[in-house]
């Protein structure tokens, strides 16, 4: 598949069909996966929320829970509830439905841009993406059906591996489970801010849970993984089609769950977003 069609396919995901006021439907996707990729549902739900909001307001955060595996054979319906319409802030809840049942709930908050106090963490020192290992090319060379399905999910993305605990990152007993990579959408997303927000949201779900297993020497075949929640704080606008560093740290895992926090830096060192995700990480018996 050419890069252009992968990008078109990704963008097609975000082009929701309007069924009624505050009610939308995603388009079906070709996939060999048994369930819908969580980042797709999150990105489509965010797009549905944005559709109901005056463009003077921009999304600054979203919190969401995954309830049921999505069925890739039927489109997902997005039902938007207007929870608050304030002067400075708007809040929307989006229920993603299939077969008459909710599979995912997202709540998003929107704000009229304003100024205030400013500070941020310093970006970690890492090498350039051009010098790092091309993860997607590695997946494409896997040759198994699983590797092909995975490569499909990543098809529109560029990913350059920086390292994880014990593999490419120096040992850090303070943070024993972490991983870093460069990500971007391959191609030109244009200038519509919603496209960048949606594409970033899609990509933000693709690697974060992996950080919870960086401290554990287990392969994917030995673990059952599923995202439980997904949270993004959008600090300021940025382009999802230019490299951003995903600095992922898992502070804790226990009870079959792992939490990971990702700081997102653009190449110039600006902290543009923070992502949090808890996932089910079960040892497969």
């Amino acid at each position, binding site marked *: 598949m050419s890069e252009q069609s992968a990008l078109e396919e990704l963008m097609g995901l975000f082009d929701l069909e309007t069924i009624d006021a505050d009610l939308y439907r995603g388009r079906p996707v070709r996939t060999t996966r048994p369930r819908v990729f969580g980042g797709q549902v999150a990105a489509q739900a965010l797009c549905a929320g944005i559709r109901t909001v005056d463009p003077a307001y921009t999304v600054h955060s979203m919190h969401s829970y995954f309830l049921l595996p999505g069925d890739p054979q039927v489109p997902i319906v997005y039902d938007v509830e207007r929870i608050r319409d304030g002067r400075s802030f708007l809040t929307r809840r989006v229920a993603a439905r299939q077969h008459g049942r909710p599979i995912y709930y997202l709540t998003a908050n929107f704000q009229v841009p304003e100024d205030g106090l400013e500070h941020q963490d310093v970006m970690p020192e890492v090498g350039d993406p051009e010098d790092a290992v091309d993860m997607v090319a590695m997946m494409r060379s896997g040759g198994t059906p699983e590797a092909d399905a995975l490569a499909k999910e990543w098809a529109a993305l560029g990913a350059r591996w920086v390292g994880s605990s014990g593999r490419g990152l120096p040992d850090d007993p303070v943070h024993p489970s972490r991983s870093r990579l460069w990500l971007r959408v391959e191609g030109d997303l244009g200038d519509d801010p919603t496209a960048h927000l949606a594409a970033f949201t899609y990509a933000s779900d693709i690697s974060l849970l992996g950080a919870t297993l960086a401290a554990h020497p287990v392969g994917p075949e030995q673990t059952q993984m599923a995202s439980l929640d997904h949270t993004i704080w959008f600090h300021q606008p940025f382009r999802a089609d230019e490299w951003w560093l995903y600095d992922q740290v898992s502070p804790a895992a226990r009870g079959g769950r*792992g939490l990971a926090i990702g700081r997102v830096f653009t190449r110039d060192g600006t*902290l543009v977003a923070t992502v949090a995700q808890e996932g089910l990480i079960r040892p497969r018996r």
Partner: protein
Amino acid sequence: MPRTTAELLALLDLETIDDNLFRGTQPGSILPRVFGGQVAAQALVAADRTVEGGYAVHSLHSYFLQPGDTAAPIVYDVERLRDGRSFATRRVLARQHGRPIYVMTVDLQRPEEGFEHQDRVPEVPGPDEAIDINDRIRGADGSFTEWDVLDFRYVGSSHDLLPADEDRPGRQQMWLRVNDRLPDDPLLHAAAFTYASDATIMGAALSPQGISIGTREVMVASLDHSVWFHRPFRADEWWLFDQHSPVATGGRGLVNARIFDQDGVLVASVAQEALIRPMRPSAGER
């Protein structure tokens, strides 16, 4: 606001109005609006009331929508989103005067075993060596007792006592506990902790500016509040509130916090974003 654990327990003991519908008592307060931690804690209790035994809360995510009225009780309306084999999910809408003031989603899980790791606890002075700030909070004449149910021991912040860390300019550390023994019910500890977790947390976002939480230089209003409960722990024994603000921009500051017990076990994580405005805006808007 509750001054004693008995008053805190009364706050957490909701009245059942109907199936999935509850009402909280409203303790007297001189604050201009309801403390966010109170709404969060009561909403958590409401959610738990609708879930059968055997499930324990492992995370909650919430948004503050409107300032709560301290003169009226808050009604909690619970929607059952999922009753699965391993997980149960609830949404709680907190209402006053017919309007939603707060919305929380709570996920509960049947306890299981799995992979384990955690960040290492920072080296900090213990609660007995840290600074008792309860008297400072009560004010010169000792009359401001709104926070009395909590014990605070201040360790430091980026502009005050903590060693410099250029990579992370927004940090604050504090020991907290509920000031008297709670019953052993883990839900009460989770709820009491949730109550306390909304206090002092934005200090880390103000510290790069040399501003201390509680001063009148800025107006701070919580926008969202999330808690991940990694394991059960006692809210009435000291826990370290290790707060880190990765960023503030656009009138908002974000804080990610880690909670360690006195043995250095990471028991919970908290995240909050808040509106931070350098002056007092007109009442009622956020």
